[in-house]
């Protein structure tokens, strides 16, 4: 029975990962640690795992790997501790809010000879995999441009505190699409221009809309909207979409558009029930297999770093009003 621990439930994705672990045979959520005791205790109880208040004690358990789902700015400290204890690590995205922290995370894991993965479930989405196949097959010829979105609802809490998040919607919702595009095209980002601001949640200290214009190797032009622009009344959490313009046609992908429209008088607002494959489950499966086989997870720490480099350049651009070189 492979044993996995979760470090911090600050990020709501931790709940999804815990639920995925519960679905997998021969896998156990062995323990929960959280620097917020009340939050950790509650989450542990909810997922039927013991809560361990002391981090040293938690890392001394016989777990093979840990999932780090803390606030962005706290990833580094936790990953370093986990790696030093010989644990395989799956780190929530963004890997860290700045490049130096990302590099420190990667080098700590390399030094400790443990596997490191970045949680980019979009790579495990069946529609994304299918579109990658179309692009790779050459059926559509050369790729010219894409217009993408990663919209979401306002998460509030620490996401809106710059010290903990490192930034707003541009930080939160650029990396998934940046990573997916790198993976789908096999190209790197070269330059970025970004216009962002606090457009919707006036009393917030971070940006809630980011409009990015990126360039990739080979002159591919990319527009991306990273936002928290979906209201509370929206029927789902948000979206990941791309319109990809190629030499021989156009591919449109709305990654989570496998939905059932649900109307329920108790909740009043309309809701979309998602019925497609669960990318989080595939992500966790890959991590567990990586722990088991002592290999690196499919999406590496370097992939996490590359996506953060795009985000960091985007913030530099938004601040300076100029196009910025990535990396």
């Amino acid at each position, binding site marked *: 029975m492979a044993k996995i621990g979760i470090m911090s439930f600050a990020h709501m994705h931790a709940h999804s990962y815990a639920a995925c672990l519960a679905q997998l045979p021969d896998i156990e959520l062995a323990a929960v640690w959280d620097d917020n005791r009340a939050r950790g205790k509650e989450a542990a109880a909810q997922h039927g795992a013991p809560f361990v208040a002391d981090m040293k004690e938690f890392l001394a358990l016989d777990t093979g790997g840990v999932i780090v789902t803390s606030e962005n700015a706290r990833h580094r400290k936790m990953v370093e501790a986990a790696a030093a204890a010989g644990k395989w690590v799956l780190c929530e995205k963004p890997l860290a809010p700045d490049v130096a922290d990302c590099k420190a995370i990667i080098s700590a894991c390399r030094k400790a000879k443990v596997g490191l993965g970045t949680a980019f479930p979009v790579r495990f989405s069946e529609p994304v995999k299918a579109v990658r196949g179309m692009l790779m097959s050459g059926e559509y010829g050369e790729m010219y*441009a894409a217009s993408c979105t990663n919209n979401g609802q306002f998460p509030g809490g620490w996401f809106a505190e710059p010290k903990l998040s490192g930034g707003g919607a541009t930080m939160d919702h650029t990396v998934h699409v940046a990573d997916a595009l790198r993976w789908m095209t096999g190209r790197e980002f070269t330059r970025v221009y970004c216009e962002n601001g606090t*457009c919707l949640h006036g009393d917030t200290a971070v940006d809630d809309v980011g409009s990015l214009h990126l360039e990739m190797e080979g002159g591919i032009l990319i527009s991306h*909207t990273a936002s928290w622009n979906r*209201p509370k009344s929206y029927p789902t959490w948000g979206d990941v979409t791309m319109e990809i313009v190629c030499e021989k046609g156009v591919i449109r992908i709305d990654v989570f558009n496998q939905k059932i429209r649900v109307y329920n008088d108790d909740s009043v607002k309309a809701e979309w029930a998602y019925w497609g494959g669960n990318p989080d489950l595939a992500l966790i499966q890959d991590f567990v297999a990586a722990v088991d086989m002592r290999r690196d997870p499919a999406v590496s720490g370097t992939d996490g770093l590359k996506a953060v480099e795009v985000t960091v350049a985007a913030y530099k651009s938004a601040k300076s*009003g100029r196009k910025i070189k990535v990396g």
Partner: protein
Amino acid sequence: MNVAVIGCGTMGHLHAATASECGLKIVACGDKYKHNAKVLAEKYGAVASDDSMAVIADPEIDIVVICSPTPTHSGYAIAAAEAGKHIFCEKPFARTVQQCKETMRAARKAKVKLFVAHVVRYFHEYEGMRAQILAGKVGKPGFVKMYRGGLFPLGTDEWFRDYEQSGGVTLDSMVHDIDWLRYTFGNAERVYCQALRRSDPEFVDYSMATFKLKNGVIAKIIGSWAAPGGFHTEVEVCGDKGMLEFNSLETPISTMKRRAPGEQPGTIVPDSPVPKSPYRLEWEDFLAWLYNTRLPRVTPHDATAAVKMALAALDSAETGRPIRL
């Protein structure tokens, strides 16, 4: 009132039909190619000519409708003004801001009415969205996304394919969304744009622009002349209390023709009938102005501002720099 149509392509035919529905008489058609002028003129028993300047000068004409390629608009419009004719000009108003200004000056001097056909302001769905926004349904707007996409247009002599003439999708198509954006949310402070403008190996244009408005709204406008299939538009407006979404592919009617065995399957053709076409509404608005009953929804100043914004986007795409407006 007697109408002359200059430029007898798709829009020339459409405006001739609409003006005729409004009770106006189509008396002359001018086109660089006499054949094109003839095809349209025959429908209305009008005179066809390949000398558009002579058509404009004809004292019988009251209104000149300009549907020729963009760079020729101002020449015809100024001639029309000088001949004392009212002007109904297809968008974009002109190829340069200078041409817009010269045309406005000529119209003002001649005391003729000059209307630029920004028809999106008359689309029921766009008016509906604007009404929702003005009614506060999304709260204070903070983000706008507009999409307009279809085939690369053909046009006589394939003039759209000459980006120097047409300005590509950014000037010719996105100018619709740019105008509606400004009409609904106000003026822009700056723009950044990426445009494909490919002519080799494929004629495709795809343009992606971010406008930062003076009131803080961030607007993304995507224009596509890269779609191999049908035309469609999308709008999304997000505010601090809600959002609205529109997609023109959601229609009350969609049809699909049965094909003979072995033939390629037909495409689904959406249809959304309305009591009055937006073209009819813009003509009625223009005519109400001519009859001195009210000012139209679009002024030449608006049309100039839209050209200015679209050209700034093209300038940004060219230089890779944001352009201050």
